[in-house]
């Protein structure tokens, strides 16, 4: 696909996700201060920023795990009208389980470490109401295969797997129900560089093959540069700059972004 085709797509389509004016405090700490973002169907939005800048908090809001103090959130999907932050707990949980996938930096957060890997994936399907054992097996296998997880280990518990494999199980779980959006919070941080490259390859391939809308958070500019179409730079709970990936990396406007980019290069 060429750029000439891509650009109009970005311009013409309605955004899939719109978050606006999201704020969140933890006691005296302002984790998010009036943050807004739009994500278009099929694109990859990268969020960079130093540690503590509010990236994970923002992602948790997108995943409806936590509610902000202020702000609105809409998803342009047939059956999800209105501000999602106002849904009741039950509706939020169902939406989160069926339409949003997430991969955490720490696999302990996203996985039942002592259940089987396939079971971790199957849980999503069970929540969505699948009650046929054979179908659960098959679909869990498909999702694991799509995450390039070796199927001969599909029943091994994550606790017995390497860090890279654990991330693949999380990924399989996240994509099992073909979510409208895939959220990735530092998915490769803490992995060996070579493993990191392999996991990023898988993510890129998934993105290319399925055109999954993704939001990827990292403090590693290299990861963001490989993955993202558009980049949002965060600092102290605020967005300091955003734009197309190439633009941000080649011509950073904000002093903080310049510092980040030059430190990296």
């Amino acid at each position: 696909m060429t750029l000439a085709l891509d650009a109009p797509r970005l311009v013409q389509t309605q955004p899939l996700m719109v978050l606006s004016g999201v704020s969140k405090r933890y006691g005296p700490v302002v984790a998010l201060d009036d943050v807004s973002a739009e994500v278009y169907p099929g694109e990859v939005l990268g969020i960079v920023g130093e540690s503590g800048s509010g990236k994970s908090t923002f992602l948790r809001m997108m995943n409806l795990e936590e509610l902000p103090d202020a702000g609105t959130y809409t998803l342009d999907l047939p059956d999800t009208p209105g501000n999602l932050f106002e849904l009741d707990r039950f509706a939020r949980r169902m939406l989160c389980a069926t339409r949003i996938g997430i991969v955490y930096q720490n696999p302990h957060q996203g996985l039942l470490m002592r259940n089987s890997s396939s079971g971790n994936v199957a849980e999503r399907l069970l929540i969505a109401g699948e009650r046929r054992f054979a179908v659960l097996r098959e679909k869990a296998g498909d999702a694991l295969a799509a995450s390039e997880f070796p199927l001969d280990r599909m029943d091994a518990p994550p606790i017995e797997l390497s860090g890279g494999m654990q991330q693949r199980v999380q990924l399989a779980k996240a994509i099992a129900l073909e979510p409208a959006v895939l959220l990735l919070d530092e998915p490769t941080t803490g992995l060996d560089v070579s493993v990191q490259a392999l996991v990023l390859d898988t993510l890129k391939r998934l993105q290319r093959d399925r055109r999954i809308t993704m939001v990827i958070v990292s403090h590693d500019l290299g990861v963001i540069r490989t993955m993202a179409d558009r980049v949002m730079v965060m600092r102290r709970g605020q967005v300091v700059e955003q734009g197309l990936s190439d633009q941000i990396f080649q011509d950073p406007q904000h002093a903080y972004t310049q510092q980040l980019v030059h430190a990296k290069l």
Partner: protein
Amino acid sequence: MSLTGLTRPWKDFSYGFLDASAKRELRRKMLKAVAVPGCQMPYASREVPIARGWGTGGLQVTCTLLNPGHTVKVIDQGADDSVNAASIRRFLTRVSGARSTWDTLEASLIQSRHRVPEEILREDQILILQVPNPEPLRPVEPNMSVARQMHADADYGRMWLQLYEQIVRSGRVMFGAAYPSLVHGRYVMTPSPIPRWDVPKLNMARHLTILSAGREKRLYAVPPYTRVEPLVFDDVPYKVEEHGHLTCYRSGLKGFFMNEIPQEDGGALHEVSDSHLGIKAIRQGDGEDVATGDTWYTNGEMGQ
């Protein structure tokens, strides 16, 4: 002037051991439990003269429902003559003036540990099951307040996942007694440690079942004509214990839930677990005129 002169002569003001306010609370909780089938209702579990874990929950419910017009049957693992069942039965008749029986057909209240009688219960009968652990989510969620929220949200994914894991690891479902079951399509309950054999008897039953855990201070109910569906995958059918082909060595009864009696030669004999059903069969064999009711299972198969 003496103390006796100042007080009225002592008179029974209540019966059934518990005081009137305790019984009122239990009645309210039972009504709630019937109104929301399968939902656990907390109650202030009172002291009764048996130790926690020996059926105090069941006993409190029975004491509350009991009146001198009732006929009560108490069974422990199907047997009327176990020490525990006999003690509870004697206690109940003494504190209430109710009659007692071993015969399921005659009983109006049946307090039971770990079994549902084999004879079909009627609309005028109430089954009270003693429950050690009322929370089916405990194995997957140790935090009880989170578990309560999961019940409220009907968030049973982890429950189903347990089933999936069992089949993956062992090739079959490992839940034996206390098979988690969905009540009225809404709440998952543990039917107390009754065998899988007994769970289908609760489905669309004519009688009311009340399940009560004294130590955990919870009670819940399956009202008459309410669906009770064991959690099973569509393609892995529910299986009851394979007792259908066994014959009771004492009564000759066949096709009921059996107790296994290991023999010195390494083999085993079987004895019908619903002991009074066996006794009635023996007496019938001796030519006595005793009535046996219709049973849920016929020739080891559950009727429709």
